[in-house]
């Protein structure tokens, strides 16, 4: 291979990075990222230990009170960073333990496939031990005997780093039998996936982990009652788990205070931005940072483009408008605007972007990634795709938009088996609300002949 070819390959190679210099990141304000290096190299065990690594595990093991971990986590109200924002502490308090219950599993959801999301990768590729530490704490709290990092198959680099870090941790006695002389056993394996967005849904993830088709499971029973192999299991997102060590070390109040008076949700958050902006990237910022601040950090829209609409946290969140840039990006505030915080990684659409085309792209994603289990998602979403394609081509028929309204409504929460289809419905509903005229422009034809009013069928 010629010199130039390989150098071009290297220059094009994607590397996960944080756009905050080391100087800006401090242990007391940037619990997730203060240890990361400016050169983007991995923080291996030795360096991690130097930077207070595994202190929280040591503390928790010394205290020997798993219930206290849960209590602290509950008080800190660390809300799930996988997108749903459910309190991790509360989840942990519901895990079945004791009595006849077998010990179960601590599962890290590292399936990161939500369009627009690229945060977990950074944490795994540059600072694997923080995640491992978080998982050990989670295991302690939930009495788990084994852990899995359910990692999407495409994250080859994450797998490499994690596996080496696990080996380091095992050798150093942070994993395995009798961790640090505490009598507590816990180990972790990396389980890599083979594609499909739905594997990120926590119960589909468990099915996938068990080597089955990744159809979600009904809840209840929740994974905490009957999860992997029927044992009590906890599924948490990478970022959620990476928050745990600092919470345990510094306490709930400290964590709450990290967001100042921006919001009621405490802590910091890995926010990011993508789309046609000057400097797409990732930052650890206080929870409740506004979209405007993040867009500013990214240097604004690329080349004087105007912002038309934005997704606050992935493809499954609802569209917000430029006027929403001032809102604190926390779980409840965004929720009130007909959207969701989701993963907190913003995707920006410029003025010239056709919303019909963008919606078509999003629905193609959701239709393609449907697991095929429940009807509205499996058969309803492809219909939305076809209608959107028709509208995009200007071949829509009268009634198509109302049909889209109904399809989106029918894919709402509770109507489908899992939250995948509602994730597809939310951007569609908000796009139809905010940009209806664009969709209407695609309607050029009267309703087809076959669609006459139904004649009532007789009583049977």
């Amino acid at each position, binding site marked *: 291979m010629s010199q130039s070819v390989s150098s071009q390959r290297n220059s094009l190679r994607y590397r996960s990075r944080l756009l905050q210099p080391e100087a800006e990141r401090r242990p007391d304000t940037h619990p997730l990222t203060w240890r990361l290096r400016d050169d983007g190299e991995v923080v291996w065990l030795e360096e991690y230990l130097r930077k207070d690594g595994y202190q929280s595990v040591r503390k928790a093991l010394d205290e020997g009170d798993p219930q206290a971990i849960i209590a602290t986590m509950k008080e800190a109200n660390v809300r799930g960073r996988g997108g749903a924002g459910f309190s991790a502490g509360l989840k942990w308090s519901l895990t079945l333990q004791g009595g006849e219950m077998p010990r179960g599993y601590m599962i890290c959801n590292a399936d990161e496939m939500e369009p627009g999301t690229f945060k977990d990768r950074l944490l795994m590729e540059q600072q694997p031990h923080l995640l491992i530490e978080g998982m050990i704490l989670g295991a302690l709290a939930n009495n788990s005997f084994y852990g899995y990092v359910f990692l999407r198959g495409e994250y080859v680099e994450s797998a490499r780093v994690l596996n080496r870090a696990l080996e380091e941790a095992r050798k150093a006695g942070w994993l395995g039998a009798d961790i640090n002389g505490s009598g507590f056993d816990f180990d972790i394996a990396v389980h890599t996936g083979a594609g499909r967005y739905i594997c990120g849904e926590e119960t589909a993830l468990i*099915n996938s982990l068990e080597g089955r088709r990744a159809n979600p499971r009904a809840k209840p*029973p929740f994974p905490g*009652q009957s999860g992997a192999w029927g044992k009590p299991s906890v599924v948490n997102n990478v970022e959620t788990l990476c928050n745990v060590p600092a919470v345990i070390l510094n306490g709930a109040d400290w964590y709450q205070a990290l967001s100042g008076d921006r919001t009621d949700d405490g802590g910091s958050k890995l926010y990011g931005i993508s789309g046609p902006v000057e400097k797409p990237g990732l930052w650890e910022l206080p929870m409740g940072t506004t979209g405007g601040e993040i867009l500013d950090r990214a240097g604004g829209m690329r080349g004087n483009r105007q912002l038309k609409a934005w997704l606050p946290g992935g493809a499954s969140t609802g569209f917000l408008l430029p006027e929403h840039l001032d809102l604190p990006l926390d779980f409840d505030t965004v929720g009130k605007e007909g959207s969701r915080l989701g993963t907190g990684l913003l995707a920006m659409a410029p003025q010239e972007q056709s919303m019909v085309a963008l919606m078509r792209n999003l629905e193609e994603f959701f239709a*393609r*990634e449907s697991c*095929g289990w429940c009807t*509205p998602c499996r058969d309803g979403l492809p219909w939305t795709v076809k209608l959107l394609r028709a509208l995009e081509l200007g071949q829509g028929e009268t009634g198509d938009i109302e049909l889209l309204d109904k399809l989106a409504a029918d894919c709402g929460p*509770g*109507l489908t088996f899992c939250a995948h289809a509602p994730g597809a419905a939310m951007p569609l509903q908000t796009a139809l609300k905010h940009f209806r005229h664009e969709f209407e422009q695609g309607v050029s034809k009267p309703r*087809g002949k076959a669609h006459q009013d139904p004649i009532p069928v007789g009583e049977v």
Partner: protein
Amino acid sequence: MATIHVDGQSYTVNGAHNLLQACLSLGLDIPYFCWHPAMGSVGACRQCAVKQYKNKDDDKGMLVMSCMTPAADQTRIDINDEEAKAFRASVVEWLMINHPHDCPVCEEGGHCHLQDMTVMTGHDRRRYRFRKRTRRNQYLGPFIAHEMNRCITCYRCVRFYNDYAGGTDLGAFGAKDNVYFGRYEEGVLESPFAGNLTEVCPTGVFTDQSHSERYTRKWDLQFAPGICHQCSMGCNTSPGERYGEIRRIENRYHGEVNGYFLCDRGRFGYGYVNRSDRPRLPEWRESPDSEPVSFDVDDALARISDALHHARRVIGIGSPRASLESNHQLEALVGKDNFSNGIEAREQACLALMNNLQRHAGLPAPTPREIESHDAVLVLGEDPVQSAGRLGLSLRQAALARAEALGESIGIPQWNAEALKTLAQDRYHPLFIAWPASTDLDDVAEARYPMGPAQIARLGFAVAHRIDPAAPAAEGLSAEDEQAAGRIAEALMNAERPLVVSGGSLASEAVLEAAGNVARALSRRAKRGGLVLIRREANSTGLALMGGQPLDWALDELAQGNADVLVVLENDLYQRMPAQRVDAALARTDTCIVLDHQRTPTAARANFLLSAASFAESDGTLVNLEGRAQRFFQVYDPVYMRPETRIHESWRWLHALTVNQRGEKAGDITLDTVIAACADAHPVLAGMTGAAPGSHYRIDGLRLAREPHRYSGRTSMRANQDVSEPRVPQDPDSAFAYSMEGYSGYHEPRQQVPFAWAPGWNSPQAWNKFTDEVGGHLRGGDPGVRLIHPVPGQGSYSQPIPGAEGTDGLRALILPRLFGGEETSARATPIQQRTEAPSVILSTDDAHRLEIKAGDTVMLGEGLTLLVLEQADWPTGWAGLPAGLVAGLLQGESITLHKPVGGEP
């Protein structure tokens, strides 16, 4: 019990149900697809949405899936809510997007759940204007046709086939809107319960291929309540006829016996009824080699009567595949002292022992449904799926029910199927199988012990001894077997309701006595257990109750010249005894009279062959392995479409002969009379009169219709023969009419339902309308009457019978098999296609000794070539041969295998 409020009305329902089941049980209609009463809920199709309100004050409510919502006390829902209706309409519309709308050419049409639900939701206009997806179909074997375009992705097929029935070759493939249900590669579906897919699939993806060539819509078929004649399980069937042929067999719901499912032998084995070579007229032949001559009924009766009249002594050989009525009528003709039940002596001894054990071993015989709630099972010397088809499915459910027990401990309701499955994983209730070959239940068994008959018996005795030290110990067990006995005893004792399963397949009284001892021991230790004993044929239990001499006796009497005339009822003697013995007996018989509906080797030796009715053209009573007397009814009158035929119930023929014999004028007999006579003559059978209502039974003053009310073409069916339409046949024997006139509704509770139909419910799901609660019992009571009742106490233990193992050479170990192992169904083409190639299983030692290896072929006798299968743990000294392969070969007989002449095969 819970009170729920539906559309403003209050109802009391079973609180353990989900809302869908509760509402359907109330007779309310909610459309659904993925839910199935036997398989629970998974919430996939989203068709069953209803509006649920939090409380009285909630006026907004929320849509929920009724199948996934518990019927908790004070639940308030609306089925008729506008939003719920609109959502349900959307769901059907989505399901129909890719559906081919090919109802006119679809074999599901007319009994299609998808059609019913589409009509129920009011969907009748297509708005989707884009291209449909199309698929390829697979060849799935002789039973099932595959048309994937019709699939609505409800996942029922794989849930039944894999989760319920334990299959591993059918699956769901692909994802998104491209989910394909089929075999992992094209080929024959392996599960012996695959046929149920035709009923489980709510549309026409899996249809009955045996029906296909001579297809008739459900509404154009004539039905009668049937009892499967293909094994001792006694599944209730709904055979459908058109133009004098049985066109298909469907399941007839029975809350205790077969529920919603049949095995494939029962469903696809009916072809013998339609064979063109069936005797349809009485025949006479001078001697075995002369050509048969057909003649008329009166002639036949006269000439046979004459022969009987001049006989020194007439011996009658009955049959465990014929009804009680026919057997009784034969006994009445020849006299008790001259009656044999047609069963070989050892089998008969086993049957008698089984009846005895069911009375005196201290444990009751559970119904198949009850079997499913036993939490530990020991199978001694049986391969239940092969020997009793549907029973194997019940035993599988018993093992799987561990999931429900586990679920209960963390509050997962019984209907939450996927949750229970993922909770339990591969944890099953303990199931132990002592059987030499692999069985279809091995995958859910804790252990299978590959033993020969004597060792199986010893294991059983040892188990009994472990449970109750007062039970005699077995001698000569290996340490390994002792350990096994210990483990089994422990599991049975830890169970709430242990179950012992055994039967006659090995023709070993020792095995049965051992099973009896285990039952007695459990009973003495105050266990609420059960004892299931598998018999070979549809009426084996009944014949053993009826009594009579064994077949050996009859053949001996004839061979010794102690009788000169023989009457054989629906029995091929060559299947039961070695040919020399039968030949020897027949050689000394002056006149041999055979009644049968098949041309068997025995029929070929008859001087008089009387064209007997099969189950489809006759009524009668069978006693199944639970001791349940069940009535089957004539589906059609063979004379209606083929006026020239003279097919009659054997009991009618025999009665006519009896009457003639007495020199009386042949007054006809009716079913009611023959039942009464049989019950009179056999006090143990007295209960049989109550097995079904008599011929005078009416509902609202009406007979019961055999035909659906949309039955078409009656006036033209025979137009090619005669332009004037004959009067429909009259049925003197039952309350059923050969007509659509008569009662066919579901409002009036009834036991005897020829076909299930209710307005808006054309598919087999219509059974929901006939049951007290969905998946429960028929509102009129589940049909049949138990004739065998356990006697209080346990009787006394039997002493272990020393085994006769260890002789040199090979002995036949005949392995029951579902396809090909039963004489009549083996005459049905699809069953023949599904029957495996002749083979013999040998232990590695024996194979070595004989210098043959797996894959070789060997010869048994002159004409039979067998493929050699080697099984490492197979008991040495035994040659495993499939049942039905070598006529007249008896269990345990010595055999010699030799290499084919002419060098290498």
